[in-house]
């Protein structure tokens, strides 16, 4: 604060001295110094924080050439608004994320994190995480060199992300990984490879979000060789439209295999309920149900105890329109022409066809109110695709709502 005052005083003195110019030149210089002062101060505030502290970020753009980190429980970092208080990491020289937190009871509110070299905001192994009104953005638009994840809670319990925005992530805009009890709501994901991704997470509700202009809108993924398998995810009341952006993810990341034009993608997960969403104009398919085998993971030995097959998936009561008319990838294009003709389009649901032959009750993929489903016969190399919707005519009990018990 002292430094800020000094900087302001110098700015003021310069503007008074004039030198025949208007004082206007000096004012921005003073502002820049004040912002530099606060940037240094913020680093110390994060080091010195005590449980219960609220660290206020004033309006302004604050530049950091190293990442910020916090390890104290029960701290709130709060700005003046996602377009007013900006933590900018443009030209960052060190650190793998913008803000890295390893602390329970952390709240991030009303600010923006821009142009970090790696992930925007990462919080790991924490309980009771709140992200509210936060924007993470790579301001140069979609680029493979952008950071991987925008908002990135991983190995967390009890996570609330709301009214937030993620733009330009080269992997996922809002990504919740290996966590338990999660709500992502009222948020917007645009121009990321994956808009919102819930991966290897147990008990998550994803609702009232907008995912548009991404490669894939909302992804529910399960990957092998991680700390837990995902389970019990509800995706409802979201608007998922025109996710047709060319995939700019680096090859090797699981999302790099997501075809452009994917609305909602379920991959190797069990117990998923997709309902009451508006899903439209996603050019490969509005809904894709697939196995990890379609993401490039072919080595069975590597899968270990992992269940690669999607099971007990319940899609019902959505409003679906358009889409499927211009699928990504040559194999899908060929498949579309073969099955539906040059001017035709895939139905609402595309299923890659991998099922566990040991499971007597079948995969229990229950699809209601969709224009149709194409079983692409992935295991057979797309040779015997099927439009038969009968195996998918079933219903499942609804999943319970996630209760974060926040009062």
């Amino acid at each position, binding site marked *: 604060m002292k430094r800020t005052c000094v900087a302001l005083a110098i700015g003021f003195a310069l503007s008074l001295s004039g030198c025949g110019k208007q004082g206007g030149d000096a004012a921005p210089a003073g502002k820049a110094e004040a912002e530099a002062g606060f940037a*240094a101060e913020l*680093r*110390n505030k*994060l*080091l010195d924080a005590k449980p219960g502290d609220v660290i206020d970020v004033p309006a302004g753009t604050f530049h950091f*050439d*190293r*990442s910020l*980190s*916090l*390890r104290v429980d029960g701290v709130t970092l709060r700005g003046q608004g996602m377009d007013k208080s900006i933590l900018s990491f443009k030209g*960052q*020289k*060190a*650190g*793998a994320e913008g803000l*890295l937190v*390893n602390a329970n009871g952390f709240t991030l509110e009303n600010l923006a994190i821009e142009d*970090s*070299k*790696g*992930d925007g905001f990462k919080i*790991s*192994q924490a309980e009771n995480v709140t992200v509210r009104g936060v924007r993470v953005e790579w301001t140069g638009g979609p680029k*493979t*060199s*952008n*950071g*991987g*994840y925008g908002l*990135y809670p*991983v*190995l967390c319990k009890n996570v609330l992300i709301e009214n937030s925005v993620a733009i330009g*992530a*080269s*992997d996922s805009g809002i*990504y919740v*990984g*290996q966590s338990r009890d999660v709500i992502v709501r009222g948020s917007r994901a645009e121009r990321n490879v994956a808009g919102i991704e819930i*991966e290897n997470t147990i008990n998550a509700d994803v609702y009232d979000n907008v995912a548009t202009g991404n490669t894939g809108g909302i992804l529910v993924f399960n*990957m*092998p*060789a*991680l*700390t837990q398998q995902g389970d019990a995810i509800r995706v409802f009341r979201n608007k998922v439209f025109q996710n047709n952006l060319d995939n700019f*993810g*680096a*090859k*090797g*990341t*699981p999302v*790099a295999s997501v075809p452009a034009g994917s609305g909602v993608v379920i991959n190797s997960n069990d117990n998923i309920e997709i309902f009451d969403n508006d899903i439209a104009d996603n050019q490969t398919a509005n809904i894709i149900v697939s196995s990890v085998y379609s*993401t*490039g*993971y*072919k*080595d069975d*030995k*590597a899968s*270990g105890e992992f269940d690669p097959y999607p099971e007990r998936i319940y899609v019902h009561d959505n409003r679906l329109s358009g889409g499927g008319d211009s699928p990504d990838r040559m194999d899908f294009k060929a498949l579309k022409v073969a099955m539906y003709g040059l001017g035709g389009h895939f139905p609402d649901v595309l299923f890659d066809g991998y099922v566990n032959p040991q499971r007597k009750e079948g995969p229990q993929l229950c699809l209601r109110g969709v224009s149709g489903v194409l079983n692409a016969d992935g295991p057979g190399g797309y040779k015997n695709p099927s439009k038969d919707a009968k195996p998918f005519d079933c219903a499942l009990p609804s999943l319970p709502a996630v209760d974060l018990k926040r009062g």
Partner: protein
Amino acid sequence: MPMRRFLAALGLALLAACTRAPAPVAFFAEGMPERLSDWNVVYVADGRLRLNARVEPYTLDSPLFTDYAHKLRTVWMPEGKAARYQPVDALDFPVGTIISKTFYYPVPDGGRGGDVVLRSADTGPEPDGGLALDKVRLVETRLLVRREAGWIALPYVWNAEQTEARLMRSGELLSLTLLAADGSKAQVDYTVPDENQCAGCHGTDLKSKAIFPIGPKARHLNRDFAYPGAGSENQLAHWQKIGYLTDVPAGELPKNPSWDDPAAPLDARARSYLDINCGHCHSRKGAARTSGMWLDATTRDLLRLGRCKLPIAAGQGTGNRPWDIAPGKPDDSILPYRMESVDPGVMMPELGRSVVHAEGVALIRDWIAAMPAQDCGS
């Protein structure tokens, strides 16, 4: 007046005495002393960085790479206290332990005071255990202090005059030019970590948030060291002899080979390198457990080690390569790609370097190339 003059003279005499026989090491049970000299673990006298009494220098079979910085490591324990042997984790040091690591670079002849430093192999301290200040540039000294409540990490940055190091809890970026023997130069954005970033590596169990030393594990210490005036001796044996280590089991103790020892098997050298450079995060409990890739010495599962393993949260860090390790194909493997990068969003480790460790990369590439080729899938 005569009294005051007497006191002044006495002060000077004491000061002179101090340079020969300094006050003992000061352990602060709380607080964060502003100056490195407050601790009196290492001190500057007669143009040298010296070690105080009972401050033991040590080295590691394979050290963690930090922008080609040389490192002077020391350990000090209070009288009558000793560390307890641990087979895998860092030795169990007693409350009161102070571990110091001074990062420094040799400087070109007559080049003192500038930002040009030499890229050269770390040959360890001088025979007295200290450093000649006309030959090196001291950058920072990090202290790990074992207090009642656990370890704390304190980074001290040396001043330009090389007379004192000040606590820099918020860290710093230092711009240095690294001059190689062939005359080539590289720019180094040397990062002094902030206190939280110290925990990024030393918080080997992210959940507990406790931090621990990384280097002083039995398998890293199990090698000879040329002790000042005492000849060469195995470090674990020496620590037992001077009363710094107890509960050492009989028989052969675990040992990592030196990563650059051409006589050691390639696999053991590579694993040793990965263990010290990556294993503190990439382990069952470490911060990088999220990735499912574990590189510490105890990991045996080849998938966990990265063989034919898909990355999880690598983003652009994959470099368009599908597998962490594609056996036989270093150019198709993500691991060397991330070691070869200096982009903060791509490189591994995430902290602690701004240039590529060319020799380390070569080792890991050779290791992967020597694996029997295997098709991981498409």
